[in-house]
């Protein structure tokens, strides 16, 4: 995990980012573009509960020591805890999901302990959930649509949300439900369909597509999500009850459109293998009214071009 500290005259804003994957990295980059931070990588074990407990103690001690310096007014300081972790994907098995849920419980416990030890400090908790999972197979999702998990991964996400909402944390709670996120490809971590197609296209490799050419998904650029979440992290606006945000583009896009766009941008054909798995055929789309009014979306072609330029730079 990463601890980012932004120190002002007599207060501190500490960001504890748990999970430095696709979204976590983008958020950190966005945060750093706004402020100057002192950042520190702290160990946090995801697999060993005993080690995790020790790590948790270390993190708490670090945070408390930062807030205990003479010139810092604790009641004006703030701690933002961000859960953007989770190695379990859409097709995760029960063991992987159990580990992830336990890790989430541990983080809630850590946050509770911090709020107890720092009763005058302001806290906010930001959780990354998944609308692609929760609303799988639903079209024209609005604010009134009910999540209907169709797989264990989605059940996990809903369970995590419920656990957080019932945890009685003395904290502002914001839950983000992004749709299909895409961003810079990174070997070894989940990158999403678009990034994978782009990466494989540049390398003349084939991509496995689990669905049909016309399967609709709502793709949202990771930078748009990061920008939105960071805006909420930085915001001084107090909210009385937890807020849930659906982060999507409201532009349902079939795979064939992505394919054509990428082929136009990289100027060569993509090699795709289609795997017709009926459960993944279901379309998923969101109405503009379901989205927050202050969410800005980068259009698909621009964002794919950005990723292509980044890929070239990296290669």
């Amino acid at each position, binding site marked *: 995990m990463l601890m980012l500290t932004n120190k002002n005259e007599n207060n501190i804003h500490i960001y504890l980012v748990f999970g430095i994957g696709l979204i976590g990295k983008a958020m950190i980059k966005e945060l750093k573009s706004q402020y100057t931070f002192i950042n520190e990588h702290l160990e946090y074990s995801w697999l060993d509960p005993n080690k995790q407990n020790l790590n948790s103690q270390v993190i708490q001690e670090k945070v408390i020591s930062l807030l205990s310096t003479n010139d810092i007014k604790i009641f004006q300081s703030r701690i933002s805890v961000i859960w953007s972790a989770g190695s379990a994907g859409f097709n995760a098995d029960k063991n992987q999901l159990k580990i992830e849920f336990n890790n989430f419980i541990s983080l809630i416990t850590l946050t509770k302990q911090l709020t107890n030890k720092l009763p005058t400090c302001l806290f906010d908790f930001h959780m990354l959930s998944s609308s692609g999972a929760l609303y799988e197979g639903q*079209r*024209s999702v609005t604010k009134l649509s009910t999540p209907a998990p169709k797989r264990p991964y989605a059940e996990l996400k809903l369970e995590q949300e419920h656990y957080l909402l019932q945890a009685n944390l003395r904290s502002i709670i914001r839950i983000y439900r992004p749709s299909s996120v895409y961003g810079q490809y990174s070997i070894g971590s989940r990158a999403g369909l678009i990034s994978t197609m782009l990466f494989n296209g540049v390398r003349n490799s084939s991509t496995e597509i689990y669905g*049909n050419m*016309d399967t*609709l998904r709502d793709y949202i650029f990771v930078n748009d999500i990061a920008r939105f979440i960071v805006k909420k992290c930085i915001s001084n606006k107090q909210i009385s009850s937890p807020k849930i945000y659906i982060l999507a583009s409201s532009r349902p896009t079939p795979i064939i*459109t992505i394919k054509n766009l990428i082929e136009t941008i990289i100027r060569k054909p993509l090699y795709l293998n289609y795997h017709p798995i009926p459960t993944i055929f279901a*379309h998923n789309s969101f109405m503009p009214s379901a989205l927050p009014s202050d969410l800005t979306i980068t259009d698909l072609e621009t964002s794919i071009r950005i990723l292509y330029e980044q890929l070239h730079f990296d290669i």
Partner: protein
Amino acid sequence: MNTLEISTVIPIYAGSEYLIELIKALKKQKEIWQSKKKHIVLKEAIFVIDDAIDNSAELLEKFKLEFDWVKVIHLSRNFGQHPATIAGILHSSGDWVVTLDEDLQHQPKDIELLLNKVAKTNCDIVYAKPTSPVHKNIFRDYSSKSYKFIVSSLVSEKVDMFNSFRLIRGSIARATASVCGHETYFDVALLWFTQRIEQAEMTLEDQRVINNNNSTYSLSTLLSHARRMIVTARAKILRGGIMFGLVAVTSSMAYSLYIIIQKLISPELISIEGWASLFVSILFFGGTSILLLGIALEYISVILLHIQGKPTFFVIDRSGDSILKQYFEN
């Protein structure tokens, strides 16, 4: 699948006079389907503001707040009706997409006529076919007919059935929209994905022209349409190019042979010195040039289609049509 979702796409340029009635008509149709409870839903009405010249944008933003099924997309500048339609389709999610004009020439209640055609024929695209002149203006209607006739004669595709009131299978609509470039004629591109096209007869009246004698189409717009249609379609002239080249080279060679034989057998018939050799040379090189040009045109035709995104194949699922069959049977 147990619900058929319909998306409507309406490009907006100067529609403020008709928008309130149009929204009412769409709402009414939505409620009719809701009351019948037969699994057809008007899920979304997508209005694409193509840099409208009146207050259509403001009106639609108000409707968007009132009805969550109204979606509004703003284009950065005026791109034209086809690009606006394409933009709307690319934001749709319905199993079927219906494109309509902004001026109530196309009544939402007539969407059922289009759907009925699908139920009967299992087709992928249904175009509205007016049963009487649309503009009620002899000159306008005759010009429109002549225009379609001229373009039809220049391209291989049946362009006279094209109409902006169309019902398109959602997956085909979106696939077509995704391959369309700024010079691609949308309806011609649709033909790359399916040949199951039908027409449904209905009364269409262009109220804008009938009442005001105004049209948003100028001569330059129509010419631009024709140009894009010819470029996108398999222009007969391109396909005919290589044939013409072959005919030219064959006939020039045959005639050259005739002149050579004549010169050898009866030289007195060609009295001018050098004429025979000069004429044979002209025929040979002329014919060869035309043949090579024809081959080049053939290559250009293939490259053009490839650049425009004509697909090698496209997979379709028509299983949802049973819902339409049941709806119209009951």
